């Protein structure tokens, strides 16, 4: 009886969890984009917490500090940071509501989940645009 052991062993593909450095190489479906953006926006909001609390504090102490906060927020750089944070908040909120609904086992089918992932963008991006118009004084 011949043994098959002599034949070279086929190299079997090995699948591991996605590493953070590989994220950009993956062509991700909308739900995966929503997911990673949920994490990125959450981390950004966490990092911005001292800045946001500081602004919240200034806005409430007195009329004078309120003006100081408004002045600090009127520079273009701070406005861009605030716009980014507005996007992070809106994306995190809308995507988070989607997750709460998914947790109720509603909309788990692939086509529905894909649609709801796209809906997250359809809601959060126009709201971000609204925040941009407000920030840069269109209304």
């Amino acid at each position: 009886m011949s043994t098959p052991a002599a034949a070279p062993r086929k190299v079997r593909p090995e699948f591991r969890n996605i590493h953070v450095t590989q994220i950009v190489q993956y062509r991700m479906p909308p739900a995966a984009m929503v997911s990673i953006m949920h994490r990125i926006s959450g981390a950004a909001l966490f990092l911005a917490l001292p800045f946001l609390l500081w602004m919240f504090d200034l806005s409430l102490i007195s009329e004078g500090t309120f003006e100081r906060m408004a002045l600090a927020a009127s520079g273009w750089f701070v406005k861009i940071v605030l716009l980014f944070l507005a996007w992070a908040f809106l994306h995190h909120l809308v995507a988070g509501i989607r997750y709460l609904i998914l947790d109720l086992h509603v909309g788990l089918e692939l086509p529905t989940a894909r649609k709801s992932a796209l809906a997250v963008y359809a809601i959060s991006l126009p709201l971000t645009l609204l925040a941009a118009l407000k920030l840069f004084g269109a209304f």
Partner: protein
Amino acid sequence: MPLAAPSAGIGTKRLVVGAHFGVGSFLLQRLTALILVVFFAVLGVRLLVAGPLDYVAWASIFVPIWMKVLTLVAMFALLYHAWIGVKDIWMDYVKPVWMRLTLQTLTALWLLACAVWSVQILWRV
């Protein structure tokens, strides 16, 4: 979580960090998220009702005691929500235990400091 001595038969390679608290964290992440949705809905409505915002209109939103309490509860919910989320990020990407524990400790201390700070912010109005 008690650290077992090697003689206890559990082994010396017992993990001191990890996702043992999975279910509790999972549920609290959702509960705190719900609290935040309610808070931002209330804040949104109050902002729309208040109209153009000057200092008085903005500050008077936070004057009623129920709004202070709701805001503080939302703030604690946010900080706990952030704790679970940031801890998950450290657990996913930071493998050396000493580094992970350091980052988690700093995160927890920072969030606790923010909790104290937010009490002061709200009760000064």
